Protein backbone atom coordinates (compact mmCIF):
# COMPACT_ATOMS: atom_id res chain seq x y z
CA UNK A 1 0.00 0.00 0.00
CA UNK A 2 2.78 2.43 0.88
CA UNK A 3 3.97 2.26 -2.73
CA UNK A 4 0.71 3.79 -3.87
CA UNK A 5 1.56 6.95 -1.97
CA UNK A 6 5.23 7.17 -2.95
CA UNK A 7 6.15 10.73 -3.79
CA UNK A 8 3.14 12.18 -1.96
CA UNK A 9 4.03 14.45 0.96
CA UNK A 10 2.53 13.98 4.41
CA UNK A 11 0.39 17.03 3.75
CA UNK A 12 -0.73 15.51 0.47
CA UNK A 13 -1.69 12.25 2.16
CA UNK A 14 -3.64 14.00 4.87
CA UNK A 15 -5.53 16.15 2.37
CA UNK A 16 -6.22 13.13 0.19
CA UNK A 17 -7.57 11.16 3.16
CA UNK A 18 -9.72 14.15 4.17
CA UNK A 19 -11.02 14.52 0.62
CA UNK A 20 -11.89 10.84 0.35
CA UNK A 21 -13.49 10.83 3.82
CA UNK A 22 -15.55 13.86 2.83
CA UNK A 23 -16.82 12.10 -0.27
CA UNK A 24 -17.67 8.98 1.72
CA UNK A 25 -19.80 10.86 4.23
CA UNK A 26 -21.06 13.47 1.76
CA UNK A 27 -24.46 11.78 1.19
CA UNK A 28 -25.29 12.46 4.86
CA UNK A 29 -25.58 16.18 4.24
CA UNK A 30 -25.86 16.63 0.47
CA UNK A 31 -29.29 16.75 -1.15
CA UNK A 32 -30.17 14.60 -4.14
CA UNK A 33 -29.36 17.40 -6.57
CA UNK A 34 -25.76 17.72 -5.41
CA UNK A 35 -25.43 13.98 -5.04
CA UNK A 36 -26.40 13.64 -8.70
CA UNK A 37 -23.79 16.26 -9.59
CA UNK A 38 -21.05 14.43 -7.72
CA UNK A 39 -22.10 11.22 -9.46
CA UNK A 40 -21.49 12.94 -12.80
CA UNK A 41 -18.24 14.43 -11.48
CA UNK A 42 -17.00 10.96 -10.53
CA UNK A 43 -18.20 9.56 -13.84
CA UNK A 44 -16.21 12.23 -15.70
CA UNK A 45 -13.20 11.62 -13.45
CA UNK A 46 -13.38 7.90 -14.09
CA UNK A 47 -13.81 8.11 -17.87
CA UNK A 48 -11.16 10.84 -17.89
CA UNK A 49 -8.76 8.49 -16.11
CA UNK A 50 -9.41 5.85 -18.75
CA UNK A 51 -8.73 8.36 -21.55
CA UNK A 52 -5.70 9.75 -19.74
CA UNK A 53 -4.19 6.27 -19.57
CA UNK A 54 -3.97 6.31 -23.35
CA UNK A 55 -2.88 9.89 -24.03
CA UNK A 56 -1.21 10.87 -20.79
CA UNK A 57 0.72 7.65 -20.23
CA UNK A 58 1.18 6.05 -23.63
CA UNK A 59 0.85 9.11 -25.89
CA UNK A 60 -2.13 7.76 -27.83
CA UNK A 61 -4.75 10.38 -28.61
CA UNK A 62 -8.28 9.01 -28.64
CA UNK A 63 -11.25 11.14 -29.61
CA UNK A 64 -13.42 8.07 -29.86
CA UNK A 65 -13.83 7.06 -26.25
CA UNK A 66 -17.57 7.30 -26.70
CA UNK A 67 -17.22 4.11 -28.73
CA UNK A 68 -15.88 2.09 -25.81
CA UNK A 69 -18.36 3.61 -23.38
CA UNK A 70 -21.17 3.08 -25.86
CA UNK A 71 -20.48 -0.55 -26.71
CA UNK A 72 -20.08 -1.29 -23.00
CA UNK A 73 -23.40 0.40 -22.27
CA UNK A 74 -25.28 -1.34 -25.07
CA UNK A 75 -23.80 -4.75 -24.28
CA UNK A 76 -24.70 -4.55 -20.59
CA UNK A 77 -28.14 -3.12 -21.31
CA UNK A 78 -29.08 -5.46 -24.17
CA UNK A 79 -28.08 -8.57 -22.22
CA UNK A 80 -30.22 -7.36 -19.34
CA UNK A 81 -33.22 -6.30 -21.40
CA UNK A 82 -33.33 -9.26 -23.79
CA UNK A 83 -31.99 -12.13 -21.72
CA UNK A 84 -32.28 -10.96 -18.15
CA UNK A 85 -28.53 -11.28 -17.63
CA UNK A 86 -27.70 -9.29 -14.51
CA UNK A 87 -25.16 -6.51 -15.11
CA UNK A 88 -22.90 -8.08 -12.48
CA UNK A 89 -22.30 -10.74 -15.14
CA UNK A 90 -23.04 -8.61 -18.18
CA UNK A 91 -20.22 -6.28 -17.24
CA UNK A 92 -17.72 -8.96 -18.26
CA UNK A 93 -19.32 -9.20 -21.69
CA UNK A 94 -19.32 -5.39 -21.86
CA UNK A 95 -15.62 -5.29 -21.03
CA UNK A 96 -14.94 -7.96 -23.62
CA UNK A 97 -16.79 -6.11 -26.39
CA UNK A 98 -15.12 -2.81 -25.49
CA UNK A 99 -11.69 -4.46 -25.50
CA UNK A 100 -12.40 -6.09 -28.87
CA UNK A 101 -13.37 -2.68 -30.26
CA UNK A 102 -10.21 -1.15 -28.80
CA UNK A 103 -8.08 -3.99 -30.13
CA UNK A 104 -9.40 -3.61 -33.66
CA UNK A 105 -8.61 0.11 -33.69
CA UNK A 106 -5.27 -0.46 -32.02
CA UNK A 107 -4.23 -3.30 -34.29
CA UNK A 108 -5.10 -1.30 -37.42
CA UNK A 109 -3.54 1.90 -36.17
CA UNK A 110 -0.34 0.46 -34.78
CA UNK A 111 0.24 -2.13 -37.50
CA UNK A 112 0.25 0.66 -40.07
CA UNK A 113 2.13 3.05 -37.78
CA UNK A 114 -0.67 5.61 -37.70
CA UNK A 115 0.35 8.14 -35.07
CA UNK A 116 -0.90 11.29 -33.38
CA UNK A 117 -3.80 13.13 -34.92
CA UNK A 118 -4.26 10.47 -37.60
CA UNK A 119 -4.78 7.85 -34.94
CA UNK A 120 -7.34 10.16 -33.31
CA UNK A 121 -9.19 10.39 -36.64
CA UNK A 122 -9.29 6.59 -36.74
CA UNK A 123 -10.90 6.49 -33.30
CA UNK A 124 -13.52 9.06 -34.35
CA UNK A 125 -14.25 7.10 -37.52
CA UNK A 126 -14.90 3.87 -35.62
CA UNK A 127 -17.14 5.60 -33.09
CA UNK A 128 -19.15 6.94 -36.02
CA UNK A 129 -19.37 3.53 -37.73
CA UNK A 130 -20.74 1.95 -34.63
CA UNK A 131 -23.16 4.80 -33.98
CA UNK A 132 -24.63 4.31 -37.45
CA UNK A 133 -24.75 0.53 -36.99
CA UNK A 134 -26.61 0.84 -33.70
CA UNK A 135 -28.87 3.48 -35.26
CA UNK A 136 -30.03 0.79 -37.69
CA UNK A 137 -30.24 -2.10 -35.27
CA UNK A 138 -33.82 -2.84 -34.28
CA UNK A 139 -32.62 -5.26 -31.63
CA UNK A 140 -30.78 -2.43 -29.89
CA UNK A 141 -33.73 -0.06 -30.24
CA UNK A 142 -32.30 1.92 -33.16
CA UNK A 143 -32.72 5.66 -33.11
CA UNK A 144 -35.69 5.33 -30.77
CA UNK A 145 -33.34 4.18 -28.03
CA UNK A 146 -33.01 1.27 -25.64
CA UNK A 147 -34.83 1.52 -22.32
CA UNK A 148 -34.17 -0.39 -19.15
CA UNK A 149 -37.07 -1.38 -16.91
CA UNK A 150 -37.10 0.64 -13.72
CA UNK A 151 -38.62 -1.17 -10.77
CA UNK A 152 -36.47 -0.46 -7.80
CA UNK A 153 -35.59 3.12 -6.95
CA UNK A 154 -35.11 2.69 -3.22
CA UNK A 155 -33.21 -0.43 -2.22
CA UNK A 156 -29.83 -1.75 -3.15
CA UNK A 157 -29.61 -4.54 -5.70
CA UNK A 158 -25.96 -4.63 -6.72
CA UNK A 159 -26.37 -7.78 -8.80
CA UNK A 160 -28.90 -6.08 -11.08
CA UNK A 161 -27.68 -2.52 -10.53
CA UNK A 162 -31.18 -1.46 -9.59
CA UNK A 163 -31.52 0.85 -6.65
CA UNK A 164 -31.26 4.29 -5.19
CA UNK A 165 -29.00 7.10 -6.36
CA UNK A 166 -27.02 6.46 -3.18
CA UNK A 167 -26.01 3.04 -4.46
CA UNK A 168 -24.87 4.57 -7.76
CA UNK A 169 -23.01 7.25 -5.86
CA UNK A 170 -20.91 4.72 -3.97
CA UNK A 171 -20.35 2.57 -7.05
CA UNK A 172 -18.96 5.44 -9.10
CA UNK A 173 -16.96 6.74 -6.14
CA UNK A 174 -15.40 3.31 -5.79
CA UNK A 175 -14.73 3.12 -9.55
CA UNK A 176 -13.17 6.56 -9.56
CA UNK A 177 -10.74 5.91 -6.75
CA UNK A 178 -10.21 2.31 -7.79
CA UNK A 179 -9.12 3.58 -11.21
CA UNK A 180 -6.79 6.05 -9.52
CA UNK A 181 -5.16 3.23 -7.54
CA UNK A 182 -5.00 0.99 -10.60
CA UNK A 183 -3.33 3.66 -12.72
CA UNK A 184 -0.93 4.53 -9.94
CA UNK A 185 0.06 0.89 -9.68
CA UNK A 186 0.38 0.44 -13.45
CA UNK A 187 2.45 3.58 -13.81
CA UNK A 188 4.96 2.45 -11.20
CA UNK A 189 5.52 -0.87 -12.94
CA UNK A 190 7.12 -2.04 -16.14
CA UNK A 191 4.06 -0.97 -18.15
CA UNK A 192 4.27 2.57 -16.83
CA UNK A 193 7.93 2.95 -17.75
CA UNK A 194 7.37 1.47 -21.18
CA UNK A 195 4.31 3.61 -21.90
CA UNK A 196 6.03 6.83 -20.90
CA UNK A 197 9.08 5.90 -22.93
CA UNK A 198 6.89 5.27 -25.98
CA UNK A 199 5.04 8.54 -25.35
CA UNK A 200 8.24 10.58 -25.12
CA UNK A 201 10.12 8.93 -27.99
CA UNK A 202 8.75 6.04 -29.97
CA UNK A 203 12.00 5.20 -31.80
CA UNK A 204 14.22 5.40 -28.73
CA UNK A 205 11.77 3.17 -26.84
CA UNK A 206 11.94 0.59 -29.58
CA UNK A 207 15.73 0.76 -29.67
CA UNK A 208 15.75 -0.09 -25.96
CA UNK A 209 14.05 -3.40 -26.56
CA UNK A 210 10.43 -2.34 -26.08
CA UNK A 211 7.93 -4.08 -28.33
CA UNK A 212 6.02 -0.88 -29.00
CA UNK A 213 3.14 -2.59 -30.78
CA UNK A 214 2.45 -4.87 -27.84
CA UNK A 215 2.61 -2.15 -25.19
CA UNK A 216 0.47 0.29 -27.14
CA UNK A 217 -2.09 -2.50 -27.58
CA UNK A 218 -2.08 -3.16 -23.84
CA UNK A 219 -2.72 0.56 -23.20
CA UNK A 220 -5.69 0.63 -25.56
CA UNK A 221 -7.08 -2.60 -24.13
CA UNK A 222 -6.93 -1.47 -20.50
CA UNK A 223 -8.32 1.95 -21.40
CA UNK A 224 -11.20 0.54 -23.41
CA UNK A 225 -11.98 -2.01 -20.69
CA UNK A 226 -12.26 0.82 -18.16
CA UNK A 227 -14.47 2.80 -20.54
CA UNK A 228 -16.66 -0.27 -21.08
CA UNK A 229 -17.29 -0.45 -17.34
CA UNK A 230 -18.23 3.23 -17.40
CA UNK A 231 -20.73 2.39 -20.14
CA UNK A 232 -22.49 -0.21 -18.01
CA UNK A 233 -22.72 2.32 -15.20
CA UNK A 234 -24.13 4.91 -17.62
CA UNK A 235 -26.75 2.51 -18.96
CA UNK A 236 -28.05 1.43 -15.58
CA UNK A 237 -27.87 4.86 -14.01
CA UNK A 238 -29.74 6.67 -16.77
CA UNK A 239 -31.86 3.67 -17.84
CA UNK A 240 -31.97 4.84 -21.44
CA UNK A 241 -29.51 4.76 -24.32
CA UNK A 242 -29.62 6.67 -27.57
CA UNK A 243 -26.94 6.05 -30.19
CA UNK A 244 -26.68 9.71 -31.20
CA UNK A 245 -26.07 10.57 -27.58
CA UNK A 246 -23.71 7.93 -26.23
CA UNK A 247 -21.69 7.47 -29.42
CA UNK A 248 -21.55 11.19 -30.20
CA UNK A 249 -18.33 13.09 -30.80
CA UNK A 250 -19.61 15.39 -28.06
CA UNK A 251 -19.44 12.51 -25.59
CA UNK A 252 -15.91 11.65 -26.76
CA UNK A 253 -14.81 15.23 -26.37
CA UNK A 254 -16.41 15.59 -22.94
CA UNK A 255 -14.31 12.67 -21.75
CA UNK A 256 -11.19 14.69 -22.51
CA UNK A 257 -12.14 17.87 -20.61
CA UNK A 258 -11.45 16.79 -17.04
CA UNK A 259 -7.98 15.36 -17.67
CA UNK A 260 -6.97 18.31 -19.87
CA UNK A 261 -7.97 20.83 -17.22
CA UNK A 262 -6.56 18.75 -14.36
CA UNK A 263 -3.40 17.73 -16.16
CA UNK A 264 -2.83 15.20 -18.93
CA UNK A 265 -0.47 12.46 -17.80
CA UNK A 266 -1.02 13.17 -14.12
CA UNK A 267 -2.86 10.70 -11.93
CA UNK A 268 -4.97 13.09 -9.92
CA UNK A 269 -5.60 15.48 -12.81
CA UNK A 270 -8.75 13.79 -14.16
CA UNK A 271 -10.41 13.79 -10.74
CA UNK A 272 -9.39 17.36 -10.00
CA UNK A 273 -10.50 18.54 -13.42
CA UNK A 274 -13.90 16.91 -13.02
CA UNK A 275 -14.38 18.49 -9.60
CA UNK A 276 -13.53 21.91 -11.00
CA UNK A 277 -15.47 21.81 -14.25
CA UNK A 278 -18.70 20.10 -13.34
CA UNK A 279 -19.80 22.09 -10.27
CA UNK A 280 -18.71 25.40 -11.87
CA UNK A 281 -20.58 24.51 -15.04
CA UNK A 282 -23.67 23.65 -13.04
CA UNK A 283 -23.53 26.83 -10.99
CA UNK A 284 -23.17 28.84 -14.17
CA UNK A 285 -26.14 27.05 -15.74
CA UNK A 286 -28.23 27.81 -12.66
CA UNK A 287 -27.18 31.46 -12.57
CA UNK A 288 -28.03 31.99 -16.22
CA UNK A 289 -31.22 29.94 -16.05
CA UNK A 290 -33.73 32.75 -16.69
CA UNK A 291 -31.87 33.90 -19.79
CA UNK A 292 -32.38 30.44 -21.23
CA UNK A 293 -28.99 29.84 -22.81
CA UNK A 294 -28.83 26.23 -23.94
CA UNK A 295 -25.32 24.80 -24.13
CA UNK A 296 -23.87 27.44 -21.81
CA UNK A 297 -22.16 24.72 -19.75
CA UNK A 298 -20.37 23.22 -22.76
CA UNK A 299 -19.38 26.69 -23.91
CA UNK A 300 -17.98 27.39 -20.46
CA UNK A 301 -16.05 24.10 -20.45
CA UNK A 302 -14.67 24.90 -23.87
CA UNK A 303 -13.45 28.26 -22.62
CA UNK A 304 -11.87 26.57 -19.59
CA UNK A 305 -10.04 24.08 -21.80
CA UNK A 306 -8.83 26.85 -24.12
CA UNK A 307 -7.62 28.86 -21.12
CA UNK A 308 -5.78 25.89 -19.67
CA UNK A 309 -4.15 25.04 -22.98
CA UNK A 310 -3.00 28.64 -23.36
CA UNK A 311 -1.90 29.49 -19.86
CA UNK A 312 -1.20 26.27 -18.01
CA UNK A 313 -0.73 23.54 -20.60
CA UNK A 314 0.45 21.00 -18.03
CA UNK A 315 -2.91 21.37 -16.27
CA UNK A 316 -3.93 22.59 -12.85
CA UNK A 317 -2.77 19.60 -10.81
CA UNK A 318 1.04 19.92 -11.31
CA UNK A 319 0.84 23.59 -10.40
CA UNK A 320 -1.44 22.95 -7.43
CA UNK A 321 0.69 20.05 -6.17
CA UNK A 322 3.78 22.26 -6.32
CA UNK A 323 2.20 25.33 -4.75
CA UNK A 324 0.53 23.42 -1.92
CA UNK A 325 3.51 21.06 -1.61
CA UNK A 326 1.39 17.94 -1.97
CA UNK A 327 4.08 15.95 -3.70
CA UNK A 328 7.78 15.40 -3.13
CA UNK A 329 10.21 15.53 -6.02
CA UNK A 330 12.33 12.42 -6.27
CA UNK A 331 15.55 12.73 -4.33
CA UNK A 332 14.28 15.57 -2.16
CA UNK A 333 13.07 15.53 1.43
CA UNK A 334 9.82 17.17 2.38
Amino acid at each position, binding site marked *: MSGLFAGVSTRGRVLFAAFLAFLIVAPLFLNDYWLAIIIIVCYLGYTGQSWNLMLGFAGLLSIGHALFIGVGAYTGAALFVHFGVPPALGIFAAILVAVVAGSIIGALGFRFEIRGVYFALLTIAFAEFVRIMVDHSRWLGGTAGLFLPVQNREGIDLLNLRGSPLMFYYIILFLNFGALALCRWLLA*GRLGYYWQ*AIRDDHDAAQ*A*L*GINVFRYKMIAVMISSAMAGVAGVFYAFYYNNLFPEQIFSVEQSVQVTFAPIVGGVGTLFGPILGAFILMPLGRVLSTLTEHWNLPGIQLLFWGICVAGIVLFRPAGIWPWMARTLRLTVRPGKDE
Partner: protein
Amino acid sequence: MGQPLLTVDGISKSFRGLRAVANVSFEVEEGAIVGLIGPNGAGKTTCFNVIAGVYRPDSGRIRLRDATLNGLRPDQICRAGLARTFQLVKPFKDLTVEENVVVGALCASGSVSEARAATGDILARLGLKAKRFQRASELTLPDRKRLEVARALATRPTLLLLDEVMAGLRPTETDEMVATFKALNRDTGLTILLIEHVMRAVMALSQHIVVLHHGEKISEGTPEHVVRDQAVLDCYLGEEVEV
Protein backbone atom coordinates in the same frame (compact mmCIF):
# COMPACT_ATOMS: atom_id res chain seq x y z
CA MET B 1 41.25 -14.88 -33.80
CA GLY B 2 37.95 -16.45 -32.90
CA GLN B 3 34.62 -15.99 -34.55
CA PRO B 4 33.74 -12.31 -35.02
CA LEU B 5 30.99 -10.90 -32.81
CA LEU B 6 29.38 -8.90 -35.60
CA THR B 7 29.60 -9.82 -39.26
CA VAL B 8 28.31 -7.35 -41.82
CA ASP B 9 28.28 -9.15 -45.12
CA GLY B 10 27.70 -7.18 -48.29
CA ILE B 11 24.84 -4.96 -47.13
CA SER B 12 23.24 -2.48 -49.52
CA LYS B 13 20.48 0.04 -48.98
CA SER B 14 18.98 2.44 -51.51
CA PHE B 15 16.44 5.20 -51.06
CA ARG B 16 14.56 5.77 -54.32
CA GLY B 17 17.58 5.14 -56.44
CA LEU B 18 20.08 6.79 -54.14
CA ARG B 19 22.57 4.16 -53.07
CA ALA B 20 23.19 5.12 -49.45
CA VAL B 21 25.09 1.96 -48.61
CA ALA B 22 26.60 -0.21 -51.33
CA ASN B 23 27.90 -3.69 -50.70
CA VAL B 24 29.60 -2.91 -47.39
CA SER B 25 31.27 -5.74 -45.48
CA PHE B 26 33.26 -5.67 -42.27
CA GLU B 27 33.65 -7.58 -39.05
CA VAL B 28 33.83 -6.59 -35.43
CA GLU B 29 35.84 -8.88 -33.18
CA GLU B 30 34.65 -9.70 -29.69
CA GLY B 31 36.01 -7.14 -27.24
CA ALA B 32 37.18 -4.73 -29.94
CA ILE B 33 36.50 -1.05 -30.46
CA VAL B 34 35.90 -0.36 -34.12
CA GLY B 35 35.47 3.07 -35.70
CA LEU B 36 33.30 3.80 -38.72
CA ILE B 37 34.34 7.05 -40.36
CA GLY B 38 33.77 8.94 -43.56
CA PRO B 39 32.69 12.35 -44.85
CA ASN B 40 29.13 13.65 -44.41
CA GLY B 41 26.69 11.64 -46.46
CA ALA B 42 29.03 8.66 -46.68
CA GLY B 43 26.31 6.32 -45.43
CA LYS B 44 27.57 5.77 -41.89
CA THR B 45 24.28 6.39 -40.12
CA THR B 46 22.34 4.44 -42.75
CA CYS B 47 24.74 1.58 -42.21
CA PHE B 48 24.02 1.80 -38.46
CA ASN B 49 20.30 1.93 -39.02
CA VAL B 50 20.46 -1.16 -41.21
CA ILE B 51 22.42 -3.02 -38.54
CA ALA B 52 20.05 -1.83 -35.78
CA GLY B 53 16.97 -2.91 -37.71
CA VAL B 54 15.52 0.53 -38.50
CA TYR B 55 15.90 -0.19 -42.20
CA ARG B 56 15.79 -3.54 -43.92
CA PRO B 57 18.86 -4.05 -46.13
CA ASP B 58 18.11 -4.52 -49.84
CA SER B 59 20.72 -7.24 -49.84
CA GLY B 60 23.40 -8.68 -47.61
CA ARG B 61 23.46 -10.31 -44.22
CA ILE B 62 24.10 -9.16 -40.68
CA ARG B 63 25.05 -11.69 -38.03
CA LEU B 64 25.60 -11.31 -34.32
CA ARG B 65 27.63 -14.41 -33.49
CA ASP B 66 25.46 -17.12 -35.08
CA ALA B 67 22.19 -15.23 -35.04
CA THR B 68 21.01 -13.52 -38.21
CA LEU B 69 19.72 -10.02 -37.49
CA ASN B 70 18.18 -9.34 -40.91
CA GLY B 71 14.49 -8.70 -40.77
CA LEU B 72 14.33 -8.34 -37.00
CA ARG B 73 12.67 -5.27 -35.48
CA PRO B 74 14.84 -2.81 -33.52
CA ASP B 75 13.47 -4.09 -30.19
CA GLN B 76 14.30 -7.68 -31.10
CA ILE B 77 17.80 -6.66 -32.12
CA CYS B 78 18.25 -4.87 -28.80
CA ARG B 79 17.17 -8.02 -26.99
CA ALA B 80 19.63 -10.01 -29.07
CA GLY B 81 22.36 -7.94 -27.41
CA LEU B 82 22.94 -4.98 -29.70
CA ALA B 83 22.23 -1.54 -28.24
CA ARG B 84 22.51 1.77 -30.05
CA THR B 85 22.49 5.50 -29.41
CA PHE B 86 21.02 8.13 -31.69
CA GLN B 87 22.99 10.88 -33.37
CA LEU B 88 20.19 13.32 -32.59
CA VAL B 89 19.66 12.48 -28.94
CA LYS B 90 16.26 11.13 -28.02
CA PRO B 91 15.82 11.42 -24.26
CA PHE B 92 12.51 10.54 -22.62
CA LYS B 93 12.15 14.18 -21.67
CA ASP B 94 9.43 13.96 -19.04
CA LEU B 95 11.21 11.21 -17.13
CA THR B 96 14.09 11.74 -14.74
CA VAL B 97 17.61 10.72 -15.69
CA GLU B 98 17.33 7.65 -13.48
CA GLU B 99 13.96 6.69 -14.94
CA ASN B 100 15.39 6.99 -18.45
CA VAL B 101 18.05 4.47 -17.51
CA VAL B 102 15.51 2.23 -15.76
CA VAL B 103 13.65 1.94 -19.08
CA GLY B 104 16.80 0.56 -20.64
CA ALA B 105 17.58 -1.66 -17.67
CA LEU B 106 14.12 -3.24 -17.79
CA CYS B 107 15.25 -4.93 -21.00
CA ALA B 108 17.58 -7.08 -18.92
CA SER B 109 15.71 -7.15 -15.60
CA GLY B 110 12.80 -9.10 -14.21
CA SER B 111 11.33 -6.25 -12.20
CA VAL B 112 11.39 -2.49 -11.78
CA SER B 113 13.23 -2.69 -8.48
CA GLU B 114 15.89 -4.91 -10.02
CA ALA B 115 16.19 -2.48 -12.94
CA ARG B 116 16.48 0.49 -10.59
CA ALA B 117 19.22 -1.24 -8.65
CA ALA B 118 21.13 -1.80 -11.88
CA THR B 119 21.19 1.90 -12.76
CA GLY B 120 23.53 3.01 -9.97
CA ASP B 121 26.73 1.71 -11.48
CA ILE B 122 25.90 2.94 -14.97
CA LEU B 123 24.97 6.43 -13.81
CA ALA B 124 28.20 6.62 -11.85
CA ARG B 125 30.25 5.57 -14.88
CA LEU B 126 28.70 8.26 -17.05
CA GLY B 127 28.99 10.92 -14.35
CA LEU B 128 25.23 11.34 -14.10
CA LYS B 129 24.74 10.14 -10.53
CA ALA B 130 24.37 13.64 -9.08
CA LYS B 131 21.79 14.49 -11.73
CA ARG B 132 19.77 11.30 -11.51
CA PHE B 133 16.64 13.02 -10.19
CA GLN B 134 16.66 15.78 -12.80
CA ARG B 135 14.26 15.59 -15.69
CA ALA B 136 15.96 14.68 -18.93
CA SER B 137 14.54 17.85 -20.49
CA GLU B 138 16.61 19.92 -18.04
CA LEU B 139 19.92 18.41 -19.13
CA THR B 140 22.56 20.14 -21.23
CA LEU B 141 23.52 18.59 -24.55
CA PRO B 142 26.68 16.86 -23.25
CA ASP B 143 24.64 15.33 -20.44
CA ARG B 144 21.96 14.23 -22.88
CA LYS B 145 24.65 12.49 -24.88
CA ARG B 146 25.84 10.74 -21.72
CA LEU B 147 22.27 9.78 -20.90
CA GLU B 148 21.90 8.31 -24.37
CA VAL B 149 24.91 6.10 -23.67
CA ALA B 150 23.79 5.22 -20.14
CA ARG B 151 20.38 4.12 -21.37
CA ALA B 152 21.88 1.92 -24.08
CA LEU B 153 24.37 0.41 -21.63
CA ALA B 154 21.57 -0.41 -19.22
CA THR B 155 20.18 -2.95 -21.69
CA ARG B 156 23.40 -4.94 -21.02
CA PRO B 157 24.47 -5.20 -24.64
CA THR B 158 27.27 -7.38 -25.97
CA LEU B 159 27.77 -4.82 -28.74
CA LEU B 160 27.24 -1.08 -28.37
CA LEU B 161 26.67 1.10 -31.44
CA LEU B 162 27.56 4.73 -30.81
CA ASP B 163 26.37 7.29 -33.33
CA GLU B 164 28.44 10.48 -32.94
CA VAL B 165 28.25 10.69 -29.18
CA MET B 166 31.21 13.07 -29.02
CA ALA B 167 29.79 15.61 -31.48
CA GLY B 168 29.19 18.91 -29.71
CA LEU B 169 31.37 18.05 -26.71
CA ARG B 170 34.30 20.21 -25.63
CA PRO B 171 37.76 18.62 -25.90
CA THR B 172 37.95 17.89 -22.17
CA GLU B 173 34.50 16.33 -22.27
CA THR B 174 35.53 14.27 -25.28
CA ASP B 175 38.55 13.00 -23.37
CA GLU B 176 36.32 12.05 -20.44
CA MET B 177 33.99 10.18 -22.75
CA VAL B 178 36.92 8.39 -24.42
CA ALA B 179 38.18 7.37 -20.98
CA THR B 180 34.72 6.11 -20.07
CA PHE B 181 34.52 3.88 -23.14
CA LYS B 182 38.06 2.62 -22.65
CA ALA B 183 37.23 1.71 -19.06
CA LEU B 184 34.03 -0.02 -20.10
CA ASN B 185 35.82 -1.96 -22.77
CA ARG B 186 38.59 -2.94 -20.36
CA ASP B 187 36.42 -3.74 -17.33
CA THR B 188 33.46 -5.45 -18.94
CA GLY B 189 34.80 -6.59 -22.28
CA LEU B 190 32.13 -4.56 -24.03
CA THR B 191 32.52 -4.47 -27.81
CA ILE B 192 31.94 -1.05 -29.37
CA LEU B 193 31.27 0.08 -32.93
CA LEU B 194 31.31 3.85 -33.22
CA ILE B 195 30.56 6.43 -35.85
CA GLU B 196 32.56 9.52 -35.09
CA HIS B 197 33.61 12.76 -36.70
CA VAL B 198 35.89 13.81 -33.88
CA MET B 199 39.11 12.26 -35.14
CA ARG B 200 40.85 12.79 -31.84
CA ALA B 201 38.34 10.43 -30.25
CA VAL B 202 38.30 7.87 -33.05
CA MET B 203 42.07 7.64 -33.10
CA ALA B 204 42.30 7.36 -29.34
CA LEU B 205 39.64 4.67 -29.09
CA SER B 206 39.62 2.46 -32.13
CA GLN B 207 41.82 -0.54 -32.70
CA HIS B 208 40.34 -0.91 -36.15
CA ILE B 209 38.77 1.63 -38.50
CA VAL B 210 36.43 1.21 -41.44
CA VAL B 211 36.20 4.13 -43.89
CA LEU B 212 33.06 4.73 -45.97
CA HIS B 213 32.70 7.11 -48.89
CA HIS B 214 29.64 7.43 -51.13
CA GLY B 215 28.21 4.36 -49.44
CA GLU B 216 31.18 2.16 -50.22
CA LYS B 217 33.98 0.91 -48.06
CA ILE B 218 37.17 2.50 -49.34
CA SER B 219 39.61 1.46 -46.66
CA GLU B 220 39.96 -0.51 -43.49
CA GLY B 221 42.69 -1.27 -41.00
CA THR B 222 44.48 0.04 -37.96
CA PRO B 223 44.29 3.81 -37.29
CA GLU B 224 47.92 4.15 -38.39
CA HIS B 225 47.19 2.38 -41.64
CA VAL B 226 44.01 4.30 -42.42
CA VAL B 227 45.45 7.78 -41.93
CA ARG B 228 48.20 6.99 -44.44
CA ASP B 229 45.87 5.46 -47.00
CA GLN B 230 45.86 7.73 -50.04
CA ALA B 231 42.22 7.02 -50.87
CA VAL B 232 41.18 8.16 -47.38
CA LEU B 233 43.37 11.24 -47.51
CA ASP B 234 41.91 12.25 -50.85
CA CYS B 235 38.28 12.11 -49.89
CA TYR B 236 38.15 12.73 -46.21
CA LEU B 237 41.04 13.44 -43.93
CA GLY B 238 43.16 15.72 -46.05
CA GLU B 239 46.87 15.93 -45.52
CA GLU B 240 47.30 17.29 -42.07
CA VAL B 241 45.91 14.72 -39.68
CA GLU B 242 48.18 13.74 -36.86
CA VAL B 243 47.77 10.45 -35.08
